[in-house]
């Protein structure tokens, strides 16, 4: 095996440039003659626009142009940002998703909704001019609360969507589930709020439009997780320019967490303004703009129930969820609370009957879309809080209760009642390993020791499952998805023997440059320092679907595998010719072709040279050594594992300290264990953030975002978490050639339930996220009733 190949904890190749300040982020790009844009936004949560007078703004020093939605329309940019996934109502009718205009001309629907782009020689001049822009607003009543939006008498956002309801969707067998509950010996019920989160990528969103009038060609540098999809949306739905006239470059991107999947108004506006002004136009979000306008995550309100029999076996699960979509239905906004959520409600368990109903509702808030985990954290939270609560209600050990209801290792493929077919796993093994790592047996003594110090200690489990590597394109289409979710790769040997990998995946922190190079090392025997991974430029890479949903390795890596197989197949023909052997007698291993039973050999670099200098070459074989592959997955992948949180609470202040956190994950085959562990760490911290710290809050009265800066939005810091205990169980995935499952979201999916199960174990009282010191103190001081009334 190549020393830097699959399984090696290789240090990340890209980190040298990041750590030395030599990364090239969008805001690092500057073009000659560049102008600066500022976006004029709605200060109101809901208002009609009575008029826009640009004259005063246009007369300000340095101003080059002020453009509104009327200008875009006049120039043929008539489209809107789409909701990319069709959801059907229970009655079979389609969802109600009126378009999401680039710049609002008629009505604004959240604080921060963009109305105009002001372009000037300097940013300060653009801001000065924006202050002079006269936008007439006629304020309308607003609604921001998830549970309030569909209520009678609530202010209405879209004429096309009565009761602010985009869809009322269901999944599962209602009658069977009701029968299961009718037969139950015990029913556990929880009212669950899955708090709204702001994504907080380290690099704020940015866009630099650069129009070339000679070529009639748009180049857009932007913070995107999927440049080809961005180009497709801007062409097919927004009508900015045809795809062949639009190049999207997403270079080094400083984190996305889902929020940079979507096309945003600012990107279109900068490209358009560049075309109008014949000048490059740059916009970079300020942090408060990021809080206001990056797509938010989560925001569900659910009533969830679990039915069990007298022996502690699960009979059924049902849930009614209100999912806040924000002011407009976004790209994955309708898929996230439906097919990415309710399909995971079986968790790791044998649950004979499941039924979910989801109301997708509009509110006067920032659009909500996929955020690290996207539906699966919400599902895991429902399942794992119910499981833990049920175990306590039944006076069963939560680990034993889980073990009793687990899908067993010999039951695969396992079909759940909610569409999924799990292909492999070993849930009891992960639980056993986690119990051991967490020293579960020692918990009673640790709890007693805490109590002796006046503290309350609790332990909580989260046996999560997720569906990653979305998915066979035909399945995506059947479920309403607007695209196919395959991935692409091109492998190109240089004549001197290096390999350039052009991938449709996109790295914005995941370490693809290293992981993908390790694949090449293992498949082709080329050292990782002679592999260049190219991504993030529609002119350089084959059409690809981008990076989200922990899909890059399972789908994009499989495309690389497929292309590598094609390379070896072609190279083998050339090698056979050069070694004067029959092709069937040529073998390939560790970068070298050999002829069975002889000492003849040729390195793959020698073959590459011969392919480009084909003087002595097999007949009928094309010169060159470059292959492309498209890979469409056979199934979702199903990473799963068990996380255990142990917390200590100071009853005087309500402060929750996470004392230990243990994560045992099954990601299938692991390519780079160090990168995987890093992804687990980051995910756990985001999950801990949701459980204890983060909350995106709109004021019910004013509709204003109260958490618009780090003064009020509580991001986790290093001292908020302990060092983690991380373990692995590997059941190689049978559904892709790499055996991998995906690891990017697991921590964020698993951790919230583990932490909240530990907090409620310590308190003996139910409490919703985030478990802030005040909420914990209140729960202790006044008991469950006051918390429920909150």
């Amino acid at each position, binding site marked *: 095996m190549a020393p830097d190949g699959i399984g090696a904890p290789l240090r990340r190749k890209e980190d040298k440039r990041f750590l030395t300040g030599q990364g090239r982020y969008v805001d690092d790009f500057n073009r000659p003659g560049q102008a600066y844009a500022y976006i004029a936004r709605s200060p109101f949560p809901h208002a009609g626009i009575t008029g826009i007078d640009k004259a005063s703004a246009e007369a300000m020093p340095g101003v080059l142009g002020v453009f509104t939605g009327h200008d875009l329309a006049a120039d043929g940019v008539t489209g809107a940002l789409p909701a990319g996934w069709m959801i059907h109502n229970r009655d079979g009718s389609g969802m109600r998703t009126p378009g999401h205009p680039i710049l609002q001309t008629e009505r604004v629907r959240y604080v921060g909704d963009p109305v105009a782009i002001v372009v000037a020689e300097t940013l*300060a001049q653009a*801001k000065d001019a924006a202050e002079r822009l006269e936008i007439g607003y006629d304020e309308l009543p607003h609604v921001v609360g998830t549970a309030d939006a569909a209520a009678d008498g609530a202010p209405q956002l879209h004429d096309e969507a009565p009761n602010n309801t985009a869809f009322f969707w269901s999944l599962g067998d209602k009658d069977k589930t009701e029968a299961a509950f009718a037969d139950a010996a015990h029913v556990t019920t929880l009212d669950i709020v899955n708090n709204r989160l702001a994504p907080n990528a380290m690099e704020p969103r940015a866009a630099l439009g650069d129009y070339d009038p000679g070529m009639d060609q748009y180049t857009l540098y932007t913070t995107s997780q999927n440049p080809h999809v961005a180009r497709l949306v801007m062409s097919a739905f927004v009508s900015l320019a045809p795809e062949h006239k639009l190049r999207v470059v997403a270079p080094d991107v400083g984190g996305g967490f889902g929020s940079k999947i979507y096309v945003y108004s600012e990107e279109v506006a900068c490209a358009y303004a560049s075309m109008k002004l014949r000048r490059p136009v740059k916009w970079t979000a300020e942090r408060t703009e990021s809080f206001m306008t990056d797509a938010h995550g989560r925001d569900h309100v659910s009533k969830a129930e679990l039915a069990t029999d007298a022996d502690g076996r699960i009979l059924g699960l049902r849930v009614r969820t209100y999912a806040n979509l924000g002011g407009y239905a976004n790209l994955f906004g309708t898929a996230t609370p439906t097919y990415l959520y309710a399909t995971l409600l079986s968790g790791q368990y044998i649950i004979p009957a499941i039924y979910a109903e989801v109301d997708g509702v509009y509110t006067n808030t920032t659009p909500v879309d996929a955020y690290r985990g996207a539906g699966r954290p919400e599902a895991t939270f429902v399942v794992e809080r119910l499981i833990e609560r049920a175990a306590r209600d039944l006076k069963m050990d939560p680990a034993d209760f889980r073990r009793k209801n687990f899908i067993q290792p010999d039951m695969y493929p396992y079909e759940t009642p909610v569409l999924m077919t799990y292909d492999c796993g070993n849930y009891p093994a992960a639980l056993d390993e986690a119990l051991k790592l967490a020293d579960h047996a020692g918990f009673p003594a640790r709890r007693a020791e805490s109590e002796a110090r006046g503290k309350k200690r609790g332990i909580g489990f989260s046996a999560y499952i997720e569906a990653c590597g979305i998915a066979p394109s035909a399945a995506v289409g059947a479920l309403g998805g607007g695209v196919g979710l395959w991935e692409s790769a091109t492998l190109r040997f240089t004549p001197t023997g290096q390999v350039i990998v052009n991938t449709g995946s996109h790295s914005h922190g995941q370490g693809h440059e290293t992981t993908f190079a390790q694949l090449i090392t293992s498949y082709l025997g080329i050292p990782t320092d002679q592999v260049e991974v190219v991504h993030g430029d529609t002119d350089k890479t084959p059409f690809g679907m981008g990076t989200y949903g922990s899909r890059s390795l399972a789908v994009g890596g499989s495309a690389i595998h497929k292309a590598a197989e094609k390379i070896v197949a072609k190279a083998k023909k050339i090698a056979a010719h050069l070694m004067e052997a029959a092709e069937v007698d040529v073998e390939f291993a560790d970068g070298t072709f050999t002829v069975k039973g002889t000492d003849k050999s040729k390195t793959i670099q020698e073959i590459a040279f011969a392919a480009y200098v084909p003087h002595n070459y097999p007949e009928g074989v094309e010169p060159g050594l470059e292959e492309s592959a498209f890979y469409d997955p056979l199934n979702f992948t199903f990473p799963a594992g068990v996380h255990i949180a142990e917390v200590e609470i100071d009853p005087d*202040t309500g402060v929750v300290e996470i004392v230990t956190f243990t994560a045992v994950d099954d990601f299938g085959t692991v390519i780079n264990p160090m990168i995987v562990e890093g992804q687990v760490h980051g995910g756990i911290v985001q999950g801990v953030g949701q459980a204890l710290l983060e*909350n995106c809050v709109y004021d019910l009265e004013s509709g204003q975002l109260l958490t618009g800066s*780090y003064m*009020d939005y509580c991001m986790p810091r290093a001292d908020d978490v302990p060092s983690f205990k991380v373990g692995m169980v590997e059941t190689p995935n049978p559904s892709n050639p790499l055996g991998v499952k995906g690891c990017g979201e697991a921590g964020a999916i698993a951790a919230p339930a583990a932490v909240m199960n530990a907090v409620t174990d310590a308190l003996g009282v139910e409490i919703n996220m985030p478990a802030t*010191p*005040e909420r914990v*103190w209140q729960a202790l*001081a006044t008991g469950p009733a006051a918390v429920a009334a909150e």
Partner: protein
Amino acid sequence: MYNFQYHKPDSLDAAVTAIAGAEDGKIVAGGMTLLPTMKQRLAAPTDLVDLSAIPDLKGIGLDGDTLVIGAMTTHAEVAHSDIVKGHTPALAGLAEGIGDPQVRNRGTIGGSIANNDPTADYPAAVLGLNATVRTTKREIAADDFFEGLFTTALEEDELIVSVAFPKPAKAAYVKFPNPASRYAMVGVLVALTDDHVRVAITGAGQDGVFRASEMEAALSADFSPQSIEEMALPAESLNADIHGSAEYRSHLVTVMAKRAVAAATG
């Protein structure tokens, strides 16, 4: 940020002249509050008078038993000063707990108390330790200095020169940080001088830093956590926001005060 005239005087007189001559001038010390506010276009002074080049405003020294800290002394300098540690360790500890290293290396004691942010730490120290604020015009007792949210007894053309702290017999500062900003949600400074105890509370009050007179009386009689165990400030006068209700802050004041007393006696 809007444009403004920038002044960097090298003497107190020149600074006073500059601020008096400005249309809508602001004095900038460390700039930890003012500059972010200006960047967000929430403040638009015509002139900024930067005090960083004035030697008279710097330094830490002892005047008999009195600790004198120049207005432009940074939090980091106070935190690491052997003089401060020898005189009032609680004050060095308080300074060490302000913000982050960047803030501590830029922010100053004069800037902090002149701004009188209701969640700042230093006002609790100045009031709780019964300090005297020495200005270009006069000496102001701490009890007269803090007048309410972002409001002090300073006149428009009056600069803080230094702050003079008498030596307490015992003192401690304990705060409960806002989980997001890590400013004081509740900060309590307890100081025992001769037979009298002062308790100054920051972060919690609607009008900024204040003294808790009932706690002072109880602690003057018996300087122990138990003496204030059952004592809670009325919630009506306390701040409430998304991080904590007035009731929670009231509870925290008692908890932090008890912890401060324990720390001072421990």
